[in-house]
Every structure is written in structure tokens, then in C-alpha cells.
């Protein structure tokens, strides 16, 4: 199993993502945003942070990078891709996932340990998790309010594309339908605002996030 973790100017969580991938199992390496070749990796992580300072709109500039073009091809071929936080924003901006992420309704950054309820989505990323299972994972972002126009939202929900919801009453940003993470129709691309890569060691809070990375390995990718 070889993991590729994208790195843009302004990425912050790429080293944590590498660490999470390695703990889950396999080899992990950085992919520079300027590279249009993913180097044969088996799964891609678009990590969190503030690519290009989050200027203009979070994720709006990073989506144009050569590496993202390669990720789009990789995803179209069914390769597993996870976008975490800023990575989720990049995936939405680039059209690999539906919807958009708006500034939190509080207009403030929020950072806390959150509870995620596993949704109905069928995806290699959630293959090790039962729907309804609750994960303890950090939530930290400024623009995490998931939005999609009514018809698109309806499709996401009824089409079984919701991968994670904030547990009832704990929606931190005003996301529609408490959505914390979604997958594409095919299920191979996952985007989520909370940070499973920061939940890989009980010492620093929880190891619940590892199940997401291990899911991909268990699903026989790579």
C-alpha cells in the first residue's frame, strides 16, 4: 500500500496525514502540488491546512494545481481519494464532490473534539465502519458549513452519499442536515471537515480516525 499526500503552499496537516497513513499501514509520501504525476500511489490524501492562505475562497486556488488534475484522473479511474478539511474544500471546488463549504455560521474558527456519526455511504473509506457508529475526532475549521442546493442535497442524502454527520445537537458550523462528510456517487472519493488524521493515538485524544484509513486497506486497495 502506498499513500500519496498532496502538499500545497500553505498546507498544514500534511505531516500528520503522512503519520496517520503509516500508522494505518503502508508507505506514505508527499506529492508536491506542481507534480502532475502521482507516482503510482494506491490512495491519495488531500490534507488540511490553508492552501494558498485560503485567500479568495478556501480551496479555490489549489484546485488548479497540476497535482489536482492528476488526482481528478486518478479519481475518475476509481482510485480512492480522501480530502480532509481544506482538502474537502479543494475537492468541492474542483467538482470531484458536490456542494460547497461556507464560512461557519459563527464566523469564527472552532477547534474541539467532536463526535461523528457514520452515515449510509458505501465507500472503501467507511468499509470498516457500521452506519450509526460514533467516532471521536477533532473538528477544527473556519469554513466548514456544508451547503448544496436543495435538489443536489436531496440527491446526496437519498443517494446514500452522506459518509458522516455531526452527532445530534453538535453541528459546529450550520452544515445542512448536520453533514460532516460526503462521498461521490461512486464512493471512492470522500471529503470530510473533521480530522481523522489527528485521531490516530489515544495519547493525543483518540485513535478512532485510524479506522477510516484502514478501511481503504481492508477494501483491498493497493
Amino acid at each position, binding site marked *: 500500500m502506498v499513500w500519496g499526500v498532496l502538499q500545497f503552499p500553505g498546507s498544514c496537516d500534511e505531516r500528520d496525514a503522512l503519520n496517520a497513513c503509516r500508522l494505518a499501514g503502508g508507505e506514505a509520501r508527499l506529492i508536491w502540488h506542481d507534480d502532475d504525476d502521482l507516482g503510482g500511489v494506491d490512495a491519495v490524501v488531500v490534507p488540511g491546512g490553508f492552501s494558498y492562505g485560503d485567500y*479568495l*475562497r478556501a480551496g*479555490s*486556488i489549489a484546485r*488548479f494545481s497540476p497535482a489536482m488534475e492528476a488526482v481528478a484522473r486518478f479519481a475518475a479511474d476509481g482510485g480512492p481519494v480522501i480530502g480532509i478539511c481544506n482538502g474537502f474544500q479543494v475537492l468541492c*471546488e474542483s467538482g470531484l464532490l458536490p*456542494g*460547497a463549504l*461556507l*464560512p*461557519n*455560521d*459563527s*464566523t469564527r474558527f472552532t477547534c474541539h473534539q467532536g463526535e461523528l456519526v457514520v452515515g449510509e455511504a458505501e465507500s472503501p473509506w467507511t468499509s470498516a465502519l457500521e452506519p450509526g457508529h460514533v467516532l471521536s475526532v477533532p473538528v477544527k475549521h473556519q469554513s466548514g*458549513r456544508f*451547503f*448544496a*442546493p436543495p435538489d443536489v442535497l436531496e440527491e446526496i442524502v437519498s443517494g446514500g452519499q452522506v459518509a458522516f454527520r455531526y452527532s445530534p445537537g453538535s453541528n459546529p458550523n*450550520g452544515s445542512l442536515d448536520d453533514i460532516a462528510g460526503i462521498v461521490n456517487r461512486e464512493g471512492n472519493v470522500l471529503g470530510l471537515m473533521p480530522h481523522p488524521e489527528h485521531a490516530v493515538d489515544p495519547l493525543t485524544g483518540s485513535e478512532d480516525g485510524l479506522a477510516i484509513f484502514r478501511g481503504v486497506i481492508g477494501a483491498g486497495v493497493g
Partner: protein
Amino acid sequence: MGDGGKKVRVLIRPREGILDAQGKAVERALPALGFDGVEQVRVGRLVELVADDPDRIDDLCQKLLANPLIEDYEIEILDD
């Protein structure tokens, strides 16, 4: 850049029907500052630039400056 560069102004607004958190925050702050009689506050982005070919700015808005899913935009080409 040639001298032909034209000043272009792009007004980007949150789309109707989408909660504008910043606008709401401004509205909430108004009474304490003694500003009654101010309503319907919407906060968006203003991008100004100089373009050789202003016709391409619509494309730039679609691709980069605005996200049509959540934002409307309006392009004004300013005379010098």
C-alpha cells in the same frame, strides 16, 4: 502588459437564500452601536483588477473568483 489594460471591477455576493453569516454578524452588532434602521446587510467580495482583455473576466469569475454554486457575480468595466 500593454497600455490597453482596462480597469475591471467584480462584485461577488452570497447567493440569495444562502445564510450570509458575516452579514448577519454585522446586523447583530448594529443596535449596540446605535444604528437602527439598517437592514438586509449582505457581505461579499470586491475584486478589482486591470485586464488586457476584459472579455475574459467572465471566464475568470466562473473558474476562480466566484463559486457559482454559492455566489453571484457582476462585472463592471470602468472607463479610465
